[in-house]
């Protein structure tokens, strides 16, 4: 009898695949259903963001920053304008800072809601997705009320925000927080502590802390590996040091540290903290001030460079800007958190089943707009 050997099969996962959350292509070599090798191919959404920035003035870049991480546009704007403000040395009115924090944290909740819903969808639970989107709609309503847009806001400007909060926003926002906090229990009941969900995600695709740091993984994914690191606390920017909140670090309560379930659950708990921050910010919101008083008519920069990083829902979002003194950046480099998080996938994903690979991909919560830029 001749020696019959089984062959490895190359399967293209993406760009058109329900689990790749966009247009990522994973070229995976499988033996049976066990993944032997993963080659991620990116760039399907590449739109020359960084090069494009070299012909736009600082104000005009903001809408393009929105379009990088389109699920957390407020956080992106916040990070970018803070980088420019650092370059310009602008003093901000306190009301602006409060509005920005409220918007950023609301958007963090919205972004995490998408992450949870789509992760559930990847595991095969369809209903949580609809539930998270139901709640996300309410946040988008708030954004629409404030900025007129539901996805890409162009709201946070250099030195200020585009509009002051509309009448009734504060009450509506309080209403939302009161509505939202009990809903977290619903997610726990429906998905987080579901036996099958735990079987599918706990102890699956583990990223040990050392590996996470090596690959430059940041944000909830890093905290899921047990590393206690959050820029909002450890390198406080804006007015985060004024609020009383906790950095969520996973404890591996149903599996081990750094598994898919931890990555999922860190986000659930983080939403609660974000809601608390929003609540405190609303309570401490300074009364009327001109929110555009510090907006420079024309951005006049000094020659030099600046790097600023902030905590995006997906991790550390960094902006490195080299200025030649004109109102157009000489070079703008964006440190994209999702890109760094994704880069670990070929290392972590080896030896997993295809189903687990989907769980891994869903749990690190990538946004292709930001990876491809």
């Amino acid at each position: 009898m001749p020696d019959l050997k089984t062959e490895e099969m190359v399967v293209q996962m993406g760009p058109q695949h329900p689990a790749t959350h966009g247009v990522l292509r994973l070229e995976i070599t499988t033996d049976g259903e066990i993944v032997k090798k993963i080659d991620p191919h990116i760039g399907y959404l590449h739109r020359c963001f960084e090069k494009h920035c070299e012909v736009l003035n600082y104000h005009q870049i903001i809408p393009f920053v929105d379009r990088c991480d389109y699920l957390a546009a407020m956080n992106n704007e916040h990070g970018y304008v803070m980088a420019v403000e650092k370059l310009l040395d602008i003093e901000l009115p306190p009301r602006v800072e409060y509005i920005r924090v409220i918007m950023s944290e609301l958007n963090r909740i919205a972004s995490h809601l998408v992450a949870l819903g789509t992760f559930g969808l990847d595991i095969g639970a369809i209903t949580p997705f609809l539930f998270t989107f139901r709640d996300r709609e309410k946040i988008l309503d708030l954004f629409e009320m404030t900025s007129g847009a539901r996805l890409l806001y162009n709201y946070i400007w250099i030195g200020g925000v585009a509009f002051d909060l509309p009448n009734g926003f504060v009450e509506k926002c309080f209403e939302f927080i009161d509505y939202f906090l009990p809903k977290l229990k619903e997610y726990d009941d429906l998905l987080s502590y579901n036996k099958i969900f735990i079987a599918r995600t706990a102890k699956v695709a583990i990223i040990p802390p050392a590996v996470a740091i090596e690959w430059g993984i940041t944000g909830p994914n890093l905290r899921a590996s047990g590393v206690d690191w959050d820029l909002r606390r450890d390198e406080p920017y804006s007015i985060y040091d004024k609020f009383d909140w906790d950095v969520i670090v996973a404890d591996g309560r149903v599996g081990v540290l750094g598994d898919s379930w931890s990555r999922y659950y860190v986000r659930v708990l983080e939403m609660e903290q974000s809601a608390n921050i929003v609540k405190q910010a609303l309570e401490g919101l300074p009364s009327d001030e001109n929110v555009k008083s510090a907006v420079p008519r024309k951005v006049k920069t000094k020659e030099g460079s600046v790097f600023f990083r902030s905590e995006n829902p997906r991790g550390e979002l960094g902006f490195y800007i080299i200025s030649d003194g004109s109102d157009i950046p000489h070079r703008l480099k964006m440190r994209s958190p999702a890109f760094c998080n994704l880069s670990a996938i070929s290392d972590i994903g080896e030896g997993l089943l295809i189903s687990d690979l989907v769980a891994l991909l869903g749990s690190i919560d990538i946004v292709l707009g930001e990876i491809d830029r």
Partner: protein
Amino acid sequence: MLGEYLPLFFLGVIVFGLIAVMLFLVRLLQPKRRSETDLEPYESGTTPTSFARTRFSVKFFIIAIIFIIFDIEVVFMYPWAVVFKELLNIGTFIFIEMLTFLGILVVGLIYVWKMGALEWD
């Protein structure tokens, strides 16, 4: 005896006839605008890199073979179960007999379990 199966025969004929008629109708109704790319297998939007019918590694091959053995033994239990109550009038022999049979089956199950045949890789 065969009369019992007559309806099944009719049912089979009708079902297959129905499917054939439906497929024929669909053939008449469907639009035909085929292009080369239509006929390519779908591989997430890229051009397929290789033929799909490779010698594929089936990790649960051993389990599949064990399954066949066990499945046949399950079939043996059906006639036993049907006549169980009748033969119980004669004595508990039928119960002891099946106990032995089941015992052997369970020993087999424990054996394959402990040998790790039910695990993958």
